[in-house]
């Protein structure tokens, strides 16, 4: 009898510790995602262990690969700093794409067509500006503008179809993904193919949104202009949703379309504008991906960033700052996996499995919050009862 109660108390201590560490509702939007990431890495460790490899070593390699921990040796002109800068370069399209997903989510829409919007924007910018001989100062802003316009139009079209014809935005954007993928593959194969690389021809460096091989401190680094813009726009978006009228309307329609309608908000117009805005960010993701991180387009392949962005947006709780943090973590997993697989012998594909698991756990966030609240109530009830005794 006594033993049993001791065991129970021990359990309580554990539960209390757990609740103390992530139970505070003020911090839950940060603590729960961190807990979920740990959970996913824990699950991944089990897989890696089952393969007979050392998970801690593998995760150490993961961090080495992205310039957070030092590698044992570096090639000429390379160092931890260059690795880290290329991580930021890789991360830029992901931040934009996740912001795009989060805008749509806030408005109650699900933009799974980010990949297609990225591809379209990247392609149009490549063939118009990328293959031209415009000067640096004209070309770079023009690339951004084309990305914004192309993405915005396609996003708006999806919103329009939803509003006017009642077509589920998920289905229509997936159809657009495939149509864009195949049609652009046709154009690339017919007109812009590089016979050696089997990709579209490389664009001019003047149009690229990443400054490549900048020589500084005896290193050659890639500096992403897009990253700075992404951070600025993330902050702007936070302000937009908090302070502006349209931002409020988008949130209202997302929370309760009927209520928004009775409050006098034009639901159809807001829906379309939400998708336009979401498309604009997808377009920016596209140009920073195809004219920044890469300088050419691989035909018939949708960028996986557009799908990972869904994970990132959810992990970041659709909050712009959260998204920057979440992009950072997911980029580390994606980007570090190459080095990890070469050093630890764990297959590169494990990276997307980890991302998938993070995503899976994130989908349960509401349930976890609910459970925490439940247990907290139970604990406080028990504490009160004990005090009474």
């Amino acid at each position, binding site marked *: 009898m006594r033993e049993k109660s001791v065991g129970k108390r021990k359990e309580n201590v554990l539960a209390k510790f757990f609740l103390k560490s992530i139970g505070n509702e003020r911090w839950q939007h940060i603590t729960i995602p961190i807990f979920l990431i740990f959970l996913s890495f824990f699950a991944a460790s089990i897989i890696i262990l089952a393969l007979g490899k050392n998970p801690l070593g593998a995760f150490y390699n993961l961090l080495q690969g992205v310039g957070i921990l030092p590698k044992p040796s570096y090639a000429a002109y390379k160092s931890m700093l260059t690795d880290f800068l290329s991580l930021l370069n890789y991360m830029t399209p992901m931040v934009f794409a996740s912001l795009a997903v989060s805008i749509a989510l806030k408005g109650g829409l699900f933009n799974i067509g980010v990949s297609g919007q990225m591809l379209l924007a990247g392609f149009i910018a490549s063939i118009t500006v990328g293959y031209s001989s415009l000067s640096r100062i004209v070309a770079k802003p023009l690339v951004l503008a084309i990305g914004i316009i192309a993405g915005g139009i396609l996003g708006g079209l999806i919103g329009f179809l939803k509003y006017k014809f009642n077509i589920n935005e998920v289905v229509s954007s*997936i159809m657009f993904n495939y*149509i864009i993928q*195949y049609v652009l593959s046709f154009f690339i194969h017919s007109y812009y193919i590089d016979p050696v690389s089997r990709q579209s021809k490389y664009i001019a460096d003047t149009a690229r949104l990443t400054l490549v091989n900048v020589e500084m401190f005896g290193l050659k680094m890639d500096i992403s202009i897009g990253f700075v813009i992404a951070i600025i726009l993330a902050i702007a978006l936070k302000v937009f949703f908090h302070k502006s009228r349209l931002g409020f309307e988008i949130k209202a329609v997302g929370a309760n379309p009927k209520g928004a309608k009775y409050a006098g908000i034009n639901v159809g117009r807001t829906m379309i504008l939400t998708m336009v805005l979401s498309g604009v960010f997808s377009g920016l993701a596209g140009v920073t991906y195809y004219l920044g991180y890469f300088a050419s387009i691989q035909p018939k392949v949708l960028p996986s960033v557009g799908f990972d962005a869904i994970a990132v947006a*959810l992990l970041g709780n659709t909050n712009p700052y959260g998204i920057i943090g979440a992009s950072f973590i997911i980029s580390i997993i994606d980007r570090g996996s190459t080095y990890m697989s070469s050093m630890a012998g764990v297959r590169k594909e494990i990276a997307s499995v980890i991302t998938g698991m993070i995503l899976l756990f994130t989908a349960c966030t*509401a349930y976890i919050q609910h459970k925490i609240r439940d247990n907290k109530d139970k604990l406080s009830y028990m504490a009160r009862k004990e005090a009474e005794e």
Partner: protein
Amino acid sequence: MIDTLIIDGLSFALPLFIMAIGGIYSERSGITNLALEGLQGFGAFFGALWAVTISYYFDIPIQKLYYLALLLSMVGGMLFSMIHALLCIKFKANQVISGVVINILSMALTTFLTTQINIVAFGELSDKFQIGTSVRFTIPGLSKLPVLGAAFKNLYPFEIVILFIALIAAYVLNKTGFGLRLRACGDNPHSVDAAGVDVYKVQFKAVLISGALSGLAGICYTYSILTHFSPSIYMGYGYLSIAALIFGNWKILPTLGACLIFGFARSGGYVLGQILKMPSTFSDLIMTLPYVLTLLLLIFFSKSNRPPRALGEIYDKGKR
């Protein structure tokens, strides 16, 4: 020409149809199921994996394991669909998000496992399971019919299996008590609850059925279009079947029509390409036909659609 059009069109449309029936089951019970894409992939992976393993270790020719593979892929799809059911019903996750999550996870997991298992178990570096092509057969008398006879020529055995299962599924959904309760769950779950039926259980079953049927569709594509299992199975057929069932207004017979249109649009495009002797780069344009058609059809038919009333809503017993 017309023969290939019908033969290829049918062998593409029928797996799409069975997957769409799975979707109808799930959605009529009130659970949005965008996970069909991932479920068919995982089902195909599961079936192919066991077929390859059994034939490798027990030295059985892989052609003989055909029906076993079909069955196992249904089991695999069902197992994976449990995640969707748990997330949507027990953990009350957003159903659209859960579906997309499952698609991403399924793609990542099967790609990883296929390469890993190939190395560990078979000692080769490949992201494919070779399961061979299916045998085909022709029904003697009927195939002699003019034009329509092509529908009975060069059939895959799975087409018969699918038709058989589809008939049962249609009967169960429309004529039995279980089907009635299932449909009621999608329209008014509270009334079902008041009648003393466990809504969660009905929905859980419906999602599992959709998983099994999607898994079957997946292995059919591995046997017909791909002839091996590899990540290239994620071609968006799952989403296409969702479009088909929306277009079919969540009813089985009109959905069959939609699937046939997709199938014939696809095979028709290829035949057209051959007739006009287009260069191979044009095949990319032809590939877009089913998708363009889907969009156009949705524009015309979505307006009059009537989805199940409680579709996508998280059922909460205490809510009135």
